[in-house]
């Protein structure tokens, strides 16, 4: 290998006491990230539970291994150079050999990175095609997802079910996979659907239809949240995906297809009257009643849900009453206004809504 030019030169250096090379703290590394993978978090992307998340996990590990190797080599050389070539107090007062460059060396550290880039590119392209360029199976299940400030609307067009904030989907049999396709758009600002254990995120953008799919194999509750800043309560636009066995899912569907509870007594009947005579009906739907609004979540089976306020609080009568009284107290910036109901009406309306199983 030829070094293009070199020479030695004398010069009078007057100052510059030698300094010990400081140990540069490069705490980053796979060790930290591996630790993260072990941490118990319901939203850990390194704990995949469906094919899209699994293929991301695989390619991520591959990329992490390559970047770690690059880091060790380059940082190691840098550290070595800094220690080995530090200025020592007993150094002779001459400048080191001046080296201007070498075309061979430049060529080698151009070509080797290009090869690495091509490798990474091919691995990446494979996952992109596997995830975004495969044909949709004819028997795939469809769910329409509509993002709202600050809640999620879910519609099952083939099943005739409409619900909000808690997405129910069936597990799929690996031998005969039936993926769930989400068709997504937004009613207002941009949102993003992100349940890390199931799949990567996909944005919900008004005036545009996006799709994504997932095929969870393990029943369970998968958490996530909106990942695109959408306004004041972006932080409490949480996602809950209930993956159920086919039998449980079928039971859920048949329950959701029933019309709203009509056999009401006492306080809950009074609550229904309060609901129907207030502005509640402008925004909410309860099927089979005069309430047909679509600005807020469908409440037909509200009591069947675990949470209210898009996952922000547990669905208990106390929380529900507090929410109806003043949504801002639980979720400041929520678009639902306080209706200024008196205590009696609040109790009645809470009793009514708690009946809507």
């Amino acid at each position, binding site marked *: 290998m030829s070094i293009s030019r070199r*020479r030695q030169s004398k010069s009078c250096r007057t100052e510059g006491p030698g300094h010990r090379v400081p140990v540069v703290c490069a705490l980053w590394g796979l060790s930290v990230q591996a630790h993260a993978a072990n941490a118990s*978090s319901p939203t850990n992307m390194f704990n995949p539970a469906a094919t899209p*998340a699994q293929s991301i996990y695989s390619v991520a590990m591959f990329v992490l291994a390559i970047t770690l190797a690059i880091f060790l080599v380059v940082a190691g050389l840098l550290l070595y150079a800094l220690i080995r070539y530090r200025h020592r107090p007993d150094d002779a007062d001459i400048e*080191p050999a001046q080296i201007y460059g070498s075309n061979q060396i430049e060529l080698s550290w151009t070509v080797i990175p290009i090869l690495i880039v091509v490798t990474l590119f091919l691995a990446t392209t494979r996952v992109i095609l596997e995830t975004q360029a495969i044909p949709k199976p004819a028997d795939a299940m469809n769910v329409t997802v509509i993002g709202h400030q600050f809640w999620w609307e879910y519609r099952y067009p083939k099943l005739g079910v409409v619900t909000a904030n808690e997405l129910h989907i069936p597990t799929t049999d690996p031998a005969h996979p039936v993926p769930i396709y989400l068709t997504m758009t937004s009613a207002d600002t941009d949102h993003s659907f992100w349940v890390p254990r199931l799949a*990567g995120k996909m944005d919900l953008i008004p005036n545009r239809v996006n799709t994504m799919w997932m095929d969870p194999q393990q029943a369970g509750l998968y958490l996530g949240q909106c990942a695109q800043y959408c306004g004041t309560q972006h932080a409490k636009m949480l996602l809950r995906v209930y993956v159920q066995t086919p039998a449980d899912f079928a039971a859920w569907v048949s329950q959701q297809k029933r019309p709203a509870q009509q056999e009401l007594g006492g306080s809950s009947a009074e609550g229904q009257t309060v609901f129907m005579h207030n502005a509640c009906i402008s925004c909410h739907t309860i099927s089979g009643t005069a309430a047909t609004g679509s600005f807020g979540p469908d409440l037909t089976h509200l009591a069947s849900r675990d949470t209210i306020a898009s996952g922000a609080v547990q669905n208990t009568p106390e929380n529900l009453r507090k929410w109806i009284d003043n949504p801002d107290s639980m979720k400041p910036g929520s678009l639902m206004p306080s209706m200024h109901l008196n205590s009696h009406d609040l109790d009645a309306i809470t009793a009514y809504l708690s009946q809507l199983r």
Partner: protein
Amino acid sequence: MSTTHATEGIDEALASEHGRPPLNRVYEWLTTVDHKKIGLMYVLYALVFLVIGGSEAILMRIQLAVSNNHFVSPQVFNRLFTMHGTTMIFFVAMPVVFGCGNYLVPLMIGARDMAFPRLNAFSFWISAFAGLLLYFSYFGASGLYAAGSAPDVGWFAYAPLTARVFSPGHSTDYWTLSVFLSGVGSIGTSINFVTTILSMRCKGMKLSRMPLLVWLYLVMGYLVIVAVSPLTAAQIMLTLDRYLGSHFFDTQAGGSAVLWMHFFWIFGHPEVYVLILPAFAFVNEIVPVFSRKAMFGYPAMVAASVGIGFISLSVWAHHMFTVGMGAAANTFFVFATMVISVPTGIKIFNWLATIWGGKVIFATPMMFCVGFLFQFLIAGLTGIMLAVAPFTWQLGSSYFVIAHFHYVIVGGILYGLFGAFYYWYPKVTGRMMSETLGKWHFWLFTIGFHLTFDFMHIPGILGMPRRIYTYEAGRGWDIWNQIVSVGTIFQAAGTLCLVFNMVWSYYRGKTAGHDPWDAWTLEWSTSSPPPDYNFAIEPTVNSRRPLWDLKHPEDPDSDYEL
């Protein structure tokens, strides 16, 4: 260089100015067209906003230190992150790199000023006004609706959140106008840089003999002109949408939210390079001087810089991997983004080769450059991870991304700038900064930096999205957020050391002389601080390191350079 007969009159006139009353001195600064004074005003202005933007970051970290915190309301938090981002990019990073360039470029090419001194002053003042306008929103933005004060749409202000229906009042208008005006200033300054570099170089300074810093400012200047123009145009379109009934980004009337994203990121990604190229520039000057060696592979460094300039214009949509562009577009932007790591890698390797075989002196400027090298390496590698589109389907808009780009901006750009402050402070003030305080600054800041930004990657992997004002317990995020928040204390303490050092050294620092670092570029041949006219006689250069030739007449660079 000695003062000649021709400049004696000027010197006398200047000497008499120092006896003038203070009001006249203020007037002189307000009306100056001198590139050095404008450069200093840019830097000081940026430092003021650095403290403001940093304080906003600290408030956010207090809020996020524990789950379910109520330190600030969601509305206040959303304003904080919008103002933090906008301030740091448009009113800290841009002005500070423009300021350093304004001060250094004419000195390094042997010129007496920038090509267009009045345009220079105009650009500075319009940018300064833009910053004040942004912060005036806290008082003036409520409008008839009394809705909101400062903007709360995020620093990239995605449509349609900026439409009047979602953002009533005038907060978004203040954001739009200040970004617009800052863009006008940036473009003006950049035209000035490009013209100055192309037409004001001293005798003998061919393009192939320009200091690398000047090369990088040339590339940066072109990038600003190409990339900031679309952003500035988009601000006009947004204002038309908001007030004159156009529908560019108004989705409710058929406009496109994705169009805004393209407009923003065709600015936004080259912007990263607009900011990092000057940091490369500082490292290119400091590393050789403190390794006592010529830059290794000068032509390759120039080629890599120009290459980065071009490639950086074709990577913007990697910010949009989750908007549903489809497999083909995603694949293209994966490739373009990965390719840019090749010229960036060449730079890191050439710095390594410059250190190799040298005699490395660990003075404070070099310490910050060493920090830069390690941290920029890591930032580049997490950048490669994010270039892998499927990885970004998970990590996009998460705290991993926040950690990545703060690694670039703080660990890379800010470290380069800190190095530059310590390196050129003696030239600017005539006095050395305290080495002891400099080391304190370095170590405190570095500990804080790593506590904050190393650990910030982890909540991203664990599913924590950006821009949330609070989070519930039980997600496994608490401990990481606490560590991240603690790191900010160390960073703030380090920054205080810097500010104190700058003030103290101005009065008490050791006298620097012309050339305290035994360096090789032209700015060190004139006095510290340089006279208004920079050089009494136009210098003549025969190589890339004119002062090396002067110091080693028996062995000049010009014998070896191609």
